[in-house]
């Protein structure tokens, strides 16, 4: 067992949705969870985030089990961004990013200097400074998602989990978010995200975990995981994969 892995799981199971998930990821990479609807991607993320408890198995962060860690301590290690950022909330973007500092607040909720700086860095990093006082219910979905990533960044956690961060975004914001995540990984964080778009997953993730009916079908570099056979067996589509003529990354063509 690798004690230095940022995140690893042992026999992780949940209520018939996930069965004996084993995974082990080091820092500094982007990991994509792929698989058809209902394969258990969101459930796996929620387990890793500690939002729900596994029925069996364990999750380790840098070799330490998270089951006995308090929510605040866990949040210092793992930031989790659920799929839905409410579009009717009237908090400002800055207030929302500040929420990422929750684990560091004092009893009556003060923010220290370090927290202020973390919030500023996160907002600068995601080009949100001009949106500081804009309200969450008045900005576009892409900007809201960027605010969500900034909130995770402000949290200062070495591991960031995101549930479909590019769903419902136009192509500009899809690339924008993915590039930001890639940069965060290069700075030494571990990014784990559920993602439906296979080509973007192949292009921007260092590793993929393909889930099929609650089990790990394959895990590894994108070109190994997304084989034509896997696409047919897991997604039940006929597909051809090939290397992109310009970038060399994996492309997928589906046959009707």
């Amino acid at each position, binding site marked *: 067992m690798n004690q230095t892995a940022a995140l690893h799981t042992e026999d992780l199971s949940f209520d018939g949705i996930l069965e004996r998930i084993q995974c082990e990821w080091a820092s500094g990479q982007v990991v994509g969870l792929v698989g058809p609807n209902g394969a258990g991607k969101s459930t796996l993320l*929620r387990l890793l*985030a*500690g*939002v729900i408890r596994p029925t069996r198995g364990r999750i380790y962060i840098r070799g330490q089990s998270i089951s006995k860690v*308090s*929510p*605040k*301590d*866990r*949040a*210092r290690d793992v*930031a*989790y*961004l*659920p799929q*839905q*950022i*409410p579009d*009717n*909330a*009237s*908090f*400002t973007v800055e*207030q*929302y990013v500040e*929420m*990422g500092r*929750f*684990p560091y*607040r004092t*009893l*009556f*909720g003060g923010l220290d200097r370090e927290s202020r700086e973390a919030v*500023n860095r996160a907002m600068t990093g995601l080009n949100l400074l001009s949106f*500081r*006082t804009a309200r969450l219910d008045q900005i576009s979905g892409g900007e809201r998602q960027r605010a969500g990533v900034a*909130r995770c960044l402000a*949290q200062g956690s070495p591991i960031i989990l995101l549930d479909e961060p590019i769903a419902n975004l136009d192509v500009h914001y899809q690339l924008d978010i993915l590039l930001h995540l890639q940069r965060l990984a290069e700075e030494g964080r571990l990014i784990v995200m559920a993602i439906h778009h296979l080509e973007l997953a192949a292009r921007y993730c260092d590793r993929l975990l393909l889930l099929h009916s609650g089990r790990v079908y394959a895990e590894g570099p994108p070109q190994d995981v997304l084989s034509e056979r896997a696409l047919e067996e897991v997604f039940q589509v006929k597909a051809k994969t090939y290397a992109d003529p310009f970038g060399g990354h994996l492309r997928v063509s589906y046959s009707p």
Partner: protein
Amino acid sequence: MWQSCCIRMYRLGMSNLRIRWTFVALGMALLVGAALELSLGPVSIPVRQLIPDAWGYFQGVHDTNAIVIGAIRMPRLFVAALVGAGLATTGAALQAVFRNPMADPSIIGVSSGASLGAVLTIQLGLSQLNEWYTPVGAFVSGLIVVLVIYRIATVRGKTSIYSLLLSGVAFSALCSSIVTLVLSLAPLETMQQMLFWLMGGLDGSTWREVLMLLVFVVIAIGIYLTQAHALDVLSLGEEQAQGVGVSLQLTKQVVLVTSAFVVGACVSSTGVIGFVGLVVPHLLRIWIGPANRRLIISSAVGGAVLMLFADLISRMILLPTELNVGIITSLLGAPFFLFLLRRQESRMYRG
């Protein structure tokens, strides 16, 4: 350096100006309301005499004005303000926990539970043994109802907000019907005593009540403030809150139990007063935004202001008859509630 200076200037921009003015306006309204509350009535006392007369009362002067101010109007003023502050801050906290702007202290069943407890202590004759048995009975039964509802809504360590709301409504109905049953079976004299208690109101407020309310309300506001940031994230959804390390169960328990204590204390001194907890935080949220720390502090002041003016209206509108203050808050609150409902619906159709 220059950048942080700019940011600070920006922070002090429009929205903060509005928030400051809101607090200034609330503070002024509180002063005006308090002065009117002390000065108006069957014996009217000029405003410039208020401070000397109050000072006189505490120095042992016992002329009419000093007694009217010190023994009657000041306790009434403080009870009204503290109950208003307690109900409004509780409303703000519950609205955040339930993620529902319609939540109100009465919605978790604590008000009707407390009424039931009070009526039962009178029916069983306990109230004649000791004057504190009725408020304590109100208090304990309010707390029991909250705990039962919480237990019902909690499955496998997770509390569903919807079953909490629904069982609160069901329990309120149950308690109210038992209250009506007890009332209709009680002999006339007991029934009058019960009705007098249920109607509550601010008549006959004492310094002892002020002290009790002061302790409960101040501690409760302190507790709500420790949860303010957890409530901020929670109002965006439970998973968002868990993602940044909020202990959901802890926050829910702390807010529910605290609200049971505060509402129990309020109901036991003034009876059920509706809509203060609904109207005040809702209006202030529209005006100064959803951040709960500000909202709770401003709701405390706003609730006090609303209660003071409601009490003034109820005392003055049908002179010499005094109405119960709960009638005025409900007369104002019910139409406002309908307005909210209507607005929310039309917004839903638009969006």
